[in-house]
């Protein structure tokens, strides 16, 4: 079938500039179905910008974007894409909302205007919270959870609408190593058992090469896009060139 072979995301010569400042130049990128793609690059390299373009929050000045085989201008099924923002953890901590209420907002757009949550929707919410291992916190206030736990809740919120693609912008910032490990386990489970394609931004190249099955390296231009083994074979010199400054990384061999 055509839809199986076409990538879920396609960037076609995309450029973007804020006012006069170029953030992205001539990006060509395909993300195939089932990918676990790690997006790396220096601060200001344009990772968040790329994601905002993909989510339709910004419009490319040049080039075109296709999602699930459709031009982004015509794309309507936004519920197929889940997103956990780089700023997800900077919400108002005093906000009086339970985990249940927060995760429900992931369904608000699906349910639609002038319609109300049904029993099925409520079950979906519980299922998503269960999936991220936070079931016993359903009726706890979100503000009283730890940073790592909140991160899981935001993932549950993006999972509740059954997305085919999940985008995570630096989700492991401020999370301790033990929880980072659990977090990647969760991602593997989503990727392999639930068939969700993943696009993950992280500065932790080491951990990323251990888990992702593809890496894209972005610094204004897309300097590298390939499988993790090829990325691991890059010399430190080449990597430093991509980053524009010397870089020391410990790349791990892929575990699968």
């Amino acid at each position: 079938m055509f839809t199986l072979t076409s990538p879920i995301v396609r960037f076609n010569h995309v450029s973007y500039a804020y006012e006069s400042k170029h953030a992205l130049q001539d990006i060509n990128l395909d993300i195939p179905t089932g990918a676990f793609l790690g997006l790396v690059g220096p601060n200001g390299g344009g990772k968040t910008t790329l994601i905002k373009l993909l989510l339709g929050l910004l419009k490319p000045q040049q080039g075109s974007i296709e999602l699930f085989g459709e031009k982004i201008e015509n794309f309507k099924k936004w519920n197929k894409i889940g997103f956990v923002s780089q700023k997800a953890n900077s919400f108002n901590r005093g906000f009086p909302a339970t985990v249940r209420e927060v995760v429900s907002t992931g369904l608000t757009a699906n349910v639609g205007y002038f319609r109300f949550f049904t029993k099925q929707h409520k079950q979906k919410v519980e299922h998503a919270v269960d999936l991220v291992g936070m079931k016993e916190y359903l009726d706890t206030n979100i503000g009283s959870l730890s940073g790592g736990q909140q991160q899981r809740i935001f993932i549950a919120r993006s999972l509740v609408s059954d997305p085919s693609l999940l985008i995570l912008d630096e989700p492991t910032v401020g999370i301790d190593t033990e929880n980072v490990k659990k977090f990647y386990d969760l991602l593997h489970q989503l990727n392999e058992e639930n068939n969700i394609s993943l696009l993950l931004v992280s500065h932790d190249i080491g951990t990323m090469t251990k888990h992702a099955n593809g890496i894209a390296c972005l610094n204004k231009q897309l300097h590298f896009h390939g499988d993790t083994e090829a990325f691991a074979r890059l010399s430190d010199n080449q990597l430093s060139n991509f980053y524009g400054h010397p870089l020391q990384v410990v790349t791990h061999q892929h575990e699968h």
Partner: protein
Amino acid sequence: MLNLFFTYDFLQNTFYTGLLIGLIGPLLGTFVVVRRLSLIADALSHVTLGGIAFGLFLEKKYGVLFLSPFYAGMGFSVVGSIFIERLRSVYKAYQELAIPIILSGGVGLSVIFISLADGFNTDLYGYLFGSVTAVSRNDLWSIVVITIIVLTVLFLFYKELFMLSFDEEHAVVSGIHSKRIHFIFIVLTALVISASIRIVGVLLVSALMTLPVAASIRIAKGFKQTIFFSVIFGELSVIIGLLTGYYFEIPPGGTIVLTSIIILILTIFSKKLWNYFTRKTVIQ
């Protein structure tokens, strides 16, 4: 004491109005507080004052009756809310700038219309601090209509409003029409403020929308519960405030706000006591 309120017509009007604003004030106030827009309520109440002054001016100069101060205030408040939205999108990085602009604009208009009307009208005192005797049957009916509008719209758009309040970026990414929803919300706020002003007064109307919520947030779990307790505290404040205000011949704005401050203090202390005792038992 309570039966006095049912012997006189005007007290009846006040009492029913009190019950209605004790419901819609804290109800909408919960959204206002969690979105950190408490000061916008203040700005809008001052714009409403400008409208009221305009209405009083028309009444005094031309004896016009088609635009009572109540409706003039409501009109100004709604227009003011639209202005706030415009200003907020012009000054994206300085969203709070809209508040002093609108607030001072409201006070400026009030001063102009008051002096055009040749000085202070005795009514004005009631508009500033609230009044137990000022609500007419007609006002009451208007407030009933406002209450029905507010309840219906909140019921219909609850999930969108909640989502927008919790995480605006997420709402936008998901395709919620955040601008339109926010617009509806701010107009509702303007309506609630103009409905509450007769009883609580311009200077204290934002207190009715925020103090019960401040108390509720301390003890509630989740958003719906926060709304629930806010409304209970709001109703308590209005009922106790109206009765004591009438009894001591004090403008009810003062007594209502003081009652809600006492409730606020009680919730803070009861929470502290609760924590103290529960911690004790854990240590044992």
